[in-house]
């Protein structure tokens, strides 16, 4: 059989499609022209979505992956187009999100000569990718495409960049579409081979513990370890707390769930960390936002660290016991060696904390973010895909929107990228059509990527944008109030547009909530509106603070439940 003549760009698309890529989010430009043309000529089933900014495109691919567990691709041009993807790539990298980023590039013989729109994106992105390629030979494309998808999705996932010079995408490719990979230094399959003795030692320690605690992180989700985790917690009667990105791996309505821990986690989760005699992290990297002062974290506990990435072991906390490998595989083995533990009194203590320090807010005294989110949670029965931006609204969403299933909670954790929430919701909605997707955003972060309203409107995505509008960069204002004598500097969002009109100008539906009495009525209408995107602007209390709070770098036992009367020291550790 004579193969049809194809160029590099067509080859690339065919290979990505064969590798399971269904969606490509991007923005066109000169150096990417051959690849854009191939979208028309290659006969590919890959669906292309035109974003309004390359950063938006990366967050869409990110949101798609976080909602489905499958990678999407990003396609942009060289120079400024490639440059605009950096925040999005970094965001994905920090949170271990698979993504294939294809950047157009100048022709190979002009590289290094400051040619028009040449940027060394291979070099620029090096610290924020799992791996990257600069393609120099058209015939390498099938191998590289296959490797890129394999690397992005296996082991600890992450973004992979493929820089495609124009003469490479335009040149003829004679290589077969299916080529073997050549990755002598990459062996993610060893994640399935764990050290049996490590697991037995963990089981022994667990069986001896009286106050055990499971700390479930994003890695447990990426490993699809939900059923094994639930079996372990229920069999042994161990309480479970999760990180921000671990939300959903264990149902938060479960009686053993303590919700999220850390800086703005629940008081009972943080107290559990302080009092536990064994803390077992499953796929969390002991981020500074959850451990506070590292040398005080779990001082009295045996620390167990289960992670797929050996470089995470001992990076922040030196564990007493460890197991390196896939969380699902390790837990399945661990579950064979554990028994029911006598944790009744431990659980009773924690239930006492739940009663004493519940997550709460007052329904009087103005419209509160917490109240809006609480009602949203009730109306959706905790069964919506929630994406968030970054700030106060994010932390309150984490507290009040209970996550019942994996892949339902989408938030930028490691990078804390403002502008993430709304485009991520667009990607999530593409990945899960027909399911409710709600972007919970602040007035600040939303304005960083709100132009993607065009994208959402054109595709008639029925997502809801809940703008929690406090007219402030609220989280920063909170720190200024607590640690800088309430001197407000660079946080007043004076000049915010009328968001309802903005939505309408883009052709989206707009709703307004101004009083607590409106919440249920308006949210119900918004949730029922499915003809396209809608935006709900909530004029919330301007100056409210998120509690509980552990000041950055402080120990978990120094958590504050409400605003202290005294002036607090400026945080020293971390940021």
């Amino acid at each position, binding site marked *: 059989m004579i193969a049809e003549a194809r160029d590099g760009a067509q080859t690339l698309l065919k290979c990505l499609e064969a590798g399971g890529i269904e969606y490509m989010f991007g923005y066109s430009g000169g150096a990417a022209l051959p690849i854009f043309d191939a979208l028309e000529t290659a006969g590919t089933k890959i669906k292309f979505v035109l974003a309004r900014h390359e950063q938006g495109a990366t967050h869409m691919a990110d949101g798609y992956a976080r909602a489905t567990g499958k990678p999407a691709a990003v396609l942009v041009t060289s120079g400024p187009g490639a440059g605009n993807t950096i925040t999005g790539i970094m965001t994905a990298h920090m949170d271990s999100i698979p993504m294939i980023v294809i950047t157009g590039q100048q022709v190979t013989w002009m590289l290094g000569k400051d040619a028009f729109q040449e940027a060394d994106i291979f070099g620029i992105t090096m610290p924020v990718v*799992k791996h*990257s390629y600069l393609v120099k030979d058209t015939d390498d494309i099938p191998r590289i495409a296959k490797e890129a998808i394999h690397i992005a999705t296996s082991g600890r996932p992450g973004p992979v960049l493929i820089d495609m010079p124009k003469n490479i995408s335009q040149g003829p490719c004679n290589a077969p579409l299916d080529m073997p990979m050549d990755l002598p*230094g990459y062996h993610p399959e060893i994640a399935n081979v764990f050290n049996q003795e490590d697991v037995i030692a963990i089981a022994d320690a667990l069986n001896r513990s009286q106050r055990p605690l499971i700390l479930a992180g994003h890695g447990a989700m990426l490993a699809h370890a939900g059923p094994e985790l639930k079996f372990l917690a229920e069999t042994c009667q161990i309480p479970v707390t999760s990180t921000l990105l671990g939300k959903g791996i264990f149902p938060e309505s479960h009686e053993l769930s303590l919700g999220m821990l850390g800086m703005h986690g629940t008081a009972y989760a943080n107290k559990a960390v302080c009092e536990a005699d064994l803390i077992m992290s499953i796929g969390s990297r002991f981020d500074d936002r959850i451990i506070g002062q590292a040398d005080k974290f779990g001082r009295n506990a045996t620390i167990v660290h289960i992670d797929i990435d050996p*470089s995470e072991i001992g990076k922040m906390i030196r564990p007493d016991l460890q197991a390196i490998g896939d969380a699902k595989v390790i837990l399945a083995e661990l579950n064979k060696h554990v028994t029911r533990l006598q944790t009744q009194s431990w659980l009773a203590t924690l239930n006492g904390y739940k009663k004493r320090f519940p997550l709460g807010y007052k329904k009087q005294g103005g419209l509160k973010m917490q109240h809006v989110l609480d009602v949203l949670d009730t109306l959706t029965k905790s069964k919506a895909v929630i994406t968030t931006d970054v700030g106060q609204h994010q932390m309150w969403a984490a507290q009040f929107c209970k996550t019942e299933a994996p892949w339902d909670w989408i938030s930028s954790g490691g990078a804390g990228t403002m502008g993430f929430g709304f485009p991520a919701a667009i990607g999530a909605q593409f990945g899960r059509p027909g399911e409710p997707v709600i972007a919970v955003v602040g007035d600040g972060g939303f304005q960083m990527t709100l132009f993607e309203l065009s994208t959402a409107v054109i595709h008639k995505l029925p997502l809801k944008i809940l703008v929690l509008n406090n007219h402030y960069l609220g989280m920063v204002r909170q720190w200024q109030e607590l640690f800088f004598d309430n001197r407000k500097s660079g946080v007043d969002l004076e000049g915010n547009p009328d968001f309802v009109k903005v939505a309408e100008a883009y052709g989206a539906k707009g709703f307004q909530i101004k009083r607590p009495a409106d919440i249920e009525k308006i949210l119900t209408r918004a949730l029922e509106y499915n003809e396209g995107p809608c935006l709900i602007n909530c004029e919330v209390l301007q100056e409210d603070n998120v509690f509980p709070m552990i000041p950055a770098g402080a120990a978990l036992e120094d958590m504050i439940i409400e605003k202290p009367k005294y002036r607090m020291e400026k945080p020293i550790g971390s940021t």
Partner: protein
Amino acid sequence: MKNRTIVTTDTPVPMEIKPPEQPLHTLSVLVNNQPGVLARIAQVFARRGFNIESLVVSPANDGRFSRMTIGARGDAENLDQIKAQCGKLIDVIHCSDHTEDDVVSKELALVKVAVGPDRRAEALQIGEHFGCKTLDLTPDSLILMVTGDTGKLDAMISMMQDFGLIELVRTGKVVMTRGEGLT
């Protein structure tokens, strides 16, 4: 030709043999022989604030791979992190720390000494003591090549200091595990 006085960064500084604050580690890294790999490795060290003291890169016996021998100073715990993070790079086949292993370790230096006829014999004699080869000889200078472990090179260079060093080029250390074990 007139006598030239050449001042280099090596010339005026008397060699201070002060005990290093942190132990020197030697990492041997087998990598894909591809552009960009060195940059990726260097970034791992730089991010953690490690100064690379010596670096030798050359093709391995299997031409698809390169061998890097990296000398770096830092506390052991930090170095474990670096090792793990290097090992994570897709282009790294394996990465091992040979600090305490049973290895043979060699380095080579070219030493350009400012020495005229009056003291030449003396300099050559010292050179001979260190097993040096004389690579170049002019009325006012000579280039000696010395090989051996780092301590031997340090000693030879410090002796030559007395005549005046014009230039010094060291290759950096290479190591290989003894016996049949792989480096």
